[in-house]
């Protein structure tokens, strides 16, 4: 016999909001004290956004809200009403990876990959705002994202290569980036 759980009382206490997620309007119901990170992962089943320190000290959970990178672990789901949210799931378009995703993969800018969604979205916003950033500007823009594997150099190189390609240049990675210095 299948037991049907009685409607939990907190069902009534759920908040119901509508916002644009990765270009599509979604409606979602969740416990009102949940963070955007929890709503994305638990109520919308989009687990690409990663769950790091939960205190704003790592940048792993970064998503774009109205185009700006913010930390989803410190934003309330409730505050998303009417906003536009982009997560890593929305970065590829029509089955085509974003140039940053391509260069991150090609240049080994991801090792364990846990910080990559946050880095990619933060870098995406940088390149939309500044198509030709210097190394220092990239460093500054990504200074709120921690990576504990690659040591950042490969990430900076990947952002520079993607930026060049997005400007329409036929850029290839320098030989030493792939094969190392002789």
């Amino acid at each position: 016999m299948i037991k049907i759980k009685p409607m939990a009382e907190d069902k009534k206490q759920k908040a119901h909001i509508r916002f644009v997620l990765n270009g599509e309007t979604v409606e979602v119901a969740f416990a009102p004290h949940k963070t955007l990170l929890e709503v994305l992962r638990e109520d919308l089943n989009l687990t690409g956004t990663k769950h790091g320190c939960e205190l704003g000290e790592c940048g792993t959970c970064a998503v774009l809200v109205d185009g700006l990178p913010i930390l989803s672990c410190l934003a309330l789901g409730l505050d998303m009403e009417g906003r536009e949210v982009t997560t890593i799931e929305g970065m590829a378009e029509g089955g085509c990876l974003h140039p940053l995703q391509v260069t991150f993969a090609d240049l080994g800018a991801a090792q364990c990959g846990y910080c990559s969604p946050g880095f990619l979205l933060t870098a995406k916003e940088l390149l939309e705002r500044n198509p030709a950033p210097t190394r220092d500007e990239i460093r500054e823009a990504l200074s709120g994202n921690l990576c504990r594997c690659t040591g950042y150099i490969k990430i900076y190189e990947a952002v520079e290569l993607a930026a060049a390609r997005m400007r329409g240049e036929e850029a290839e990675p320098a030989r030493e980036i792939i094969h190392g210095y002789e």
Partner: protein
Amino acid sequence: MMRLPKFEYRVPREISEAVKMMADAGPDGMFVAGGTDLYPNMKRRQQTPKTVISVTRLQEMRAIRGDAETGIVIGPSISLTDICNHPVINRDYPVVAEAARLISTPLLRNMGTIGGNLLLDTRCNYYDQNYEWRKGINFCMKKDGDICWVAPSSPKCWAVQSADLVPVMVALGARVKLVSTLGERMVTAEGLYNDDGINYLHKRPDELLTEIHLPPRNGMKAVYKKLRRRGAFDFPVLGVAATLDRAEDGTVRDARLILGGVAPAPIRVKEAEGILVGHKLDQERMAAAAEACYLKARPLDNTDFLMNWRKQMARPFVLRALEELR
């Protein structure tokens, strides 16, 4: 996984509505702007409001008006990123934009507000820990306990003033407007802070910070220097804000030297200011002012780095600030 405790969330559209909501919520209510200070504290159960009232949608608190001639009024709900990029602030009060750029990280500056930075909770290694950690040491007097672990014989809490814009605002002679259902009042930035880690503000919990006023600049120059371990993320463990107003011949007419990050409140070093005012800035005067600041700094062992070193760093940081103003 650390979750927020349950709370009621309210989003007023007008200041009058916000202060009314706070009056209704009573002592269990708190205002929130960017949430980058309050929500981590709530996750660690350091602050546990039952009602949280958001001020982010109060349009009245999102504008900047005025210029260097008239003085400016800054809306406290403006994000730190917008402060960093604002043309009038960069042109007329560049020290505010420079200090804002040193706060935390770009992601947190997109969320955090200038008002939130001014009202940032004081910080301490024995307080900024999760509930179980704090329970393990039987809590501290700032929350749930009755002892100060960094100074066990102290009757008061020594949690540290850790916001970069606080010494800057005190140095600039800013004033803030506080509004509640009982009315409104203007308070100087200097008078806003209290030298106690628990009651660190002379603002009542039901009062809402609605405006930040900077006085006309009148040729005054200002600078802010920050000490921290990493180039991003970290709170200041020493902040030096200095302003200088000089006559044509170089004589110092007015000076302010404020230390942040070394006590529960920003420290105004009037001794150092007295050394500078009425004289020209030479190496000897600057060294004497730096020494006076060193003597006034009283960091304790409750933040990053060794406390003695933090105290010693007051000298070179004040010197650097004055060199830059010279």
